[in-house]
């Protein structure tokens, strides 16, 4: 006989048309919120697959998670803003580029879908990006932590600048970013936002896990400012996604988002507090390990035969 259903711990999700265990969703939201507060990533790249694993349809999982990320980002931004770790000027410029990049990415994915190449492109871009960012970040943090390579805290000037940094220096319209303590052309954050916006819209995620390493390694921002700044700009990205998904696809499950955000806002605060206690390289190495773990999981999914050889259209 089937087990009698328990009604005490479960909530029915009206849009997802399924029920979930409240404490399980609270726990997942709290865990991912903790990471969001700690590393300044929205956590969508972790939370969406987790929601799918507990039986939420993928389209609804992605849309509802974007709604939840707003709360986590607002909570995290406030926590970081109190310690002066949000560069609003930089955030707005990256956001402008991100909106433009997002629009280009949507068009690009439309073309790829027409050619039947969208799925493979998304998966490969995802794995390559995760592997590149994860390995570089891990190597860089490990060498700094173990003392194999002396790396002074960046103060705005490099002794032997790379090609990218030489290009960066030659760009016009330089302004000083007080919070980040760097002088940069306004084109640099705009271009970075554009690039990450394209990738994020292709991969269907907020882009925090690409944006954070990019701000650290390409714009040379201090890690503690990167975290708060990324959370700040993700508020606007996720607000746009939530409203668009609710209006066009009707896939935002408010009840699911509500449970997730209850867990995540608390987790984000705890994460932000711990973030302030950890050293920059410790933060970076932890984030790189999470990124690499997600990359390995995706790679295994690509290389091993799935248990079920069909899936619902629009699902994972």
């Amino acid at each position, binding site marked *: 006989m089937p087990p009698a259903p328990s009604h005490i711990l479960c909530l029915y999700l009206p849009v997802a048309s399924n029920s979930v265990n409240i404490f399980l969703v609270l726990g997942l939201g709290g865990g991912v919120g903790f990471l969001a507060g700690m590393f300044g990533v929205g956590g969508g790249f972790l939370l969406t697959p987790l929601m799918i694993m507990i039986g939420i349809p993928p389209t609804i999982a992605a849309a509802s998670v974007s709604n939840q990320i707003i709360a986590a980002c*607002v909570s995290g931004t406030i926590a970081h803003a109190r310690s002066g770790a949000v560069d609003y000027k930089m955030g707005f410029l990256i956001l402008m580029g991100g909106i433009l990049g997002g629009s280009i990415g949507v068009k690009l994915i439309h073309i790829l879908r027409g050619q039947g190449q969208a799925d493979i492109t998304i998966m490969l871009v995802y794995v390559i990006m995760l592997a590149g960012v994860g390995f570089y970040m891990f190597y860089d943090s490990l060498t700094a932590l173990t003392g194999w390579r002396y790396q002074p805290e960046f103060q705005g000037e490099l002794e032997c600048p790379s090609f990218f940094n030489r290009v960066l220096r030659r760009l016009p319209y330089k302004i000083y970013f007080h919070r980040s303590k760097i002088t940069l052309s306004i084109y640099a954050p705009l271009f970075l936002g554009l690039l990450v916006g394209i990738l994020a819209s292709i991969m269907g995620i907020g882009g925090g896990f690409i944006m954070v390493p990019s701000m650290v390694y390409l714009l040379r921002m201090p890690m503690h400012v990167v975290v708060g700044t990324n959370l700040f700009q993700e508020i606007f990205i996720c607000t746009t996604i939530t409203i668009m998904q609710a209006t066009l696809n009707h896939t*935002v499950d408010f009840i699911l988002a509500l449970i997730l955000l209850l867990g995540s806002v608390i987790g984000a605060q705890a994460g932000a507090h711990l973030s302030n206690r950890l050293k920059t390289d410790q933060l970076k190495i932890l984030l790189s390990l999470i990124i690499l773990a997600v990359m390995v999981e995706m790679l295994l999914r690509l290389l091993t035969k799935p248990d*079920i050889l069909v899936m619902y259209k629009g699902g994972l």
Partner: protein
Amino acid sequence: MLAHRWIIPLSVFCLIEFVSQGWAADPSTEIEFTLTPNRIAIDPFYNGSEITVEAITPVGLDMVIVCKGREETLELKKKGKVWGFLWMNVGDLVFERFPSLYILLSSKKLSGIAPPEILDKYCLGYSAVSKYVTCNAPDDSDRSLFNEVIKLKERDRLFFIGEEKINVEPIQDNRQQIKGSFLLPPKASPFEYEVSLLGFREGQARIQSTKSIVLKRGAVITFITSAAKNHGLLYGCLAVFFAVCAGLCTGLIFGKKTHKS
């Protein structure tokens, strides 16, 4: 003379056999059964519902309970190898007349209840369901993916076959009491589900009765679903508003100033 001695008994035997076969061949012979509950409202704490079927039938019948959902078009993506080593989505697959839900309980193994053609006639078992479903696949190999769809549905608990899951107890007057329970899963969409009770003897259906379970949304769930579907922009803005408020409130509650170490 010897032949004439057998005419009357033979005629009587044929008449009895004809009448009994005529009764037995009529599967529409109905029997009363109870279905508990038969009206279910989806409230905010709904997590599926356990349905119990009880009946008193003539002794010796092999019983089958079937619960079926609406026949729908099922759009899927099939997975296959790309470049010889990457498992990706490789094409679309559409099944027509696929039941949204199919739950079957039987008092013994289906193969021991009736021959395959009778099981097909009453759509009992996955093999029978596969014959009702149509697939618009470009080649026959895609039709073999039916079993994969069954796995997908079983994962969601929307498909289930429980053989020897009906409890049968003989009672007085050559009758038996039967009882079977199944879970109407939370993923089952609001609909009027058909529950059939069938009794078989010697591979033929002797009794068949049908009732329905009405699954519908309660007031709260109807309100939220309606808002999400019919007032998407307002719903989206409210969702954002609540998220921002939740974030702000938590920010204020955890209002202690932090310092970078």
